[in-house]
């Protein structure tokens, strides 16, 4: 019969467009480009910041961009949107994939119609998109999070991870690298006791944190690499007896975390600038459509105020290292 091995042994279908055309670095950005941002879900504040920045950026080069998307972060609902966008005929679709593989088929159909695909925030399978704008190298995020926490608990004690949904691609990649980092000798006294899932649901993350505290009485630290998770966790800890006993860090937006940094529930946490992410994605798409780049490794393009950017391996463009917030600098940011 047809088994996995018999299929994967067959050569994988070659990416449709990339490296087919020749890149022309100094081609002008086309006027009146039509871009569409397709976030994981439209009512996720973080995604909204990113997309709005992208839409703003489009104005800079006289393009028009819009944000459409499902109200639930599921692959299937995202797909009907891809199909519709394809029907409407856009120049590029920018997507934060809920499921790297599920969106693949429709994206291929879109590319077949000459639409450029730029993944951001959460990648789609590489053969289905032209570019992936990565907020920060997944490896760096993973490892730096561990470093951050280790520094605060003196490389010692039980720690837990509060993730988003069990299937979130970016979360799982980060967690992979965290585990890898923890394997190093200097962390031999740190023990990862649990990976909990808050499903990016504020209330579930909140109660999951409660559970962790009770289940692991001598928990020293929590990493929550998701904006929803970290703020929920911070809120529970700040109101509970565990405040000051358990160290919390992760990825969060300054606005969410400000109060908890002020009340000393959280000392340090990290994030890239989501506005820059949207901005960069927007320019990358424009460059792609205008033929400045094709998505091949080594090509470069001008990303407005962010300056020149280079495409890494597998068509990945990295925004930059995550920025670490603390009491001293947090008031300088508003997002």
């Amino acid at each position, binding site marked *: 019969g047809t088994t996995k091995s018999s299929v994967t042994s067959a050569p994988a279908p070659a990416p449709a467009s990339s490296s087919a055309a020749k890149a022309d670095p100094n081609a002008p950005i086309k006027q009146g480009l039509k871009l569409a941002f397709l976030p994981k879900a*439209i*009512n*996720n*504040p973080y*995604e*909204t910041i990113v997309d709005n920045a992208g839409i703003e950026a489009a104005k800079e080069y006289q393009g028009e961009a819009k944000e459409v998307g499902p*109200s639930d972060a599921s692959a299937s609902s995202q797909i009907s949107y891809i199909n519709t966008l394809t029907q409407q005929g856009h120049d590029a679709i920018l997507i934060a994939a809920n499921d790297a593989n599920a969106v693949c088929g429709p994206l291929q159909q879109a590319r077949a119609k000459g639409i450029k695909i730029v993944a951001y925030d959460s990648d789609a399978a590489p053969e289905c998109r032209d570019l992936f704008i990565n907020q920060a190298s997944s490896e760096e995020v993973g490892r730096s999070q561990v470093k951050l926490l280790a520094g605060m608990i003196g490389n010692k004690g039980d720690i837990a991870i509060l993730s988003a949904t*069990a299937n979130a691609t970016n979360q799982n990649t980060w967690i992979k690298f965290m585990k890898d980092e923890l394997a190093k000798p200097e962390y031999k006294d740190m023990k990862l006791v*649990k*990976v*909990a*899932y808050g499903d990016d*649901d*504020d*209330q579930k993350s*909140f*109660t*999951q944190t*409660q*559970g*962790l*505290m*009770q*289940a*692991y*009485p001598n928990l020293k630290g929590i990493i929550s690499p998701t904006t929803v998770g970290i*703020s*929920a966790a911070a*809120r529970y800890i700040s*109101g*509970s*007896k565990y405040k000051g006993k358990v160290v919390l860090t992760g990825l969060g937006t300054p*606005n*969410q975390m*400000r*109060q908890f940094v002020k009340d000393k529930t959280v000392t340090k946490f990290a994030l890239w600038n989501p506005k820059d992410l949207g901005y960069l994605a927007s320019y990358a798409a424009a460059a792609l459509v205008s033929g400045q780049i094709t998505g091949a490794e080594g090509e470069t393009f001008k990303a407005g105020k962010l300056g020149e950017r280079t495409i890494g391996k597998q068509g990945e463009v990295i925004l930059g290292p995550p920025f670490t917030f603390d009491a001293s600098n947090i008031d300088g940011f508003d997002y």
Partner: protein
Amino acid sequence: MTTATAPPEQATSARSARGLVDLVFRARELSLVIALVALVGVTASVNGNFLSGQGIEDILLNTAILALLAVGQSLVVITRNLDLSVGSVVGLVAFVTGDLLASGWGIVPGMLLGVAIGAACGLLNGLLVSFCRVPALVVTLGTLYVIQGVDHYIAHGRQINAVNLPPGLLSLGNGAVLGVPYLPLITLVIMVAIGYYLRSYPSGREFYAIGSSPEAARLAGVPVRRRILVAYLVSGCLAGLAGVLWLARFGTVIADSAHGWELLVVSAVVVGGVAITGGVGSVYGAALGALLLTTIGSALVVLRVNPFWQQAITGALLLLAISVDRVLALRLARLLRNRSRHG
């Protein structure tokens, strides 16, 4: 012609019958309490923290809102109706109230408005179901979508942050009197009030009459439509209040607070022994159901159950709860039948 007054043995059998009837009805609450005690017992024996002050406080806090919704829902279900829109009402109220409070509204007017919004939603459902006589399920599924849509439309990806909320509200969500947090207290008071009304007041009994047989209720001169309207109104108000408390409790909210809770609330009600076909059950049962569900949730985490198993186990326990309750009820009913017969 013989005088057919009850012969003594019949009278006695009748009396024992009554004892049994009460038992049958109590049994529902009873079996819940037993299950609850067992669950807590096991969990605590494995991990002492579960019964620590913090642990209990957490469970009470988590239960409060669900229980509040369950109380409102059971009122509707008892009249042989259903309100699927409660989840989205909570979401709408939590966000709108948060938005207004953040923009400088006073706490009291803000909360009142929240409850008012809930009431409006309930009124809408009630009017459609009772006066236009359209199936409750369709209507409330419809309003679920509509209210959710409105909520997301208003929120549009924004977020309410605790910093911008009046501290007074937040302390309501997390503060306590004599160690007992406010939220469970509020729920308790409301539950007892409604429960007592339903049991001890003629108009309260009419809710059961309607659920038991709408046609008979009409013939008995029960103001069917008005009662059903009230049921939805109350359910709406409580959902509104729940929304406000949600805000007070969690501080930061986005559009989808309590998203998908409609089924959770219904299962709490059902586990609580309120018959989905109406006419049977109590708000106490419903609240206990809510408590049980929440406790299961917390217990599984505390017992360090693999997260991938938690949902499966929750489902299994839920089924176990209703099955056991059912079997118990059947046993007692049969016992009752045999006794209540010829001596």
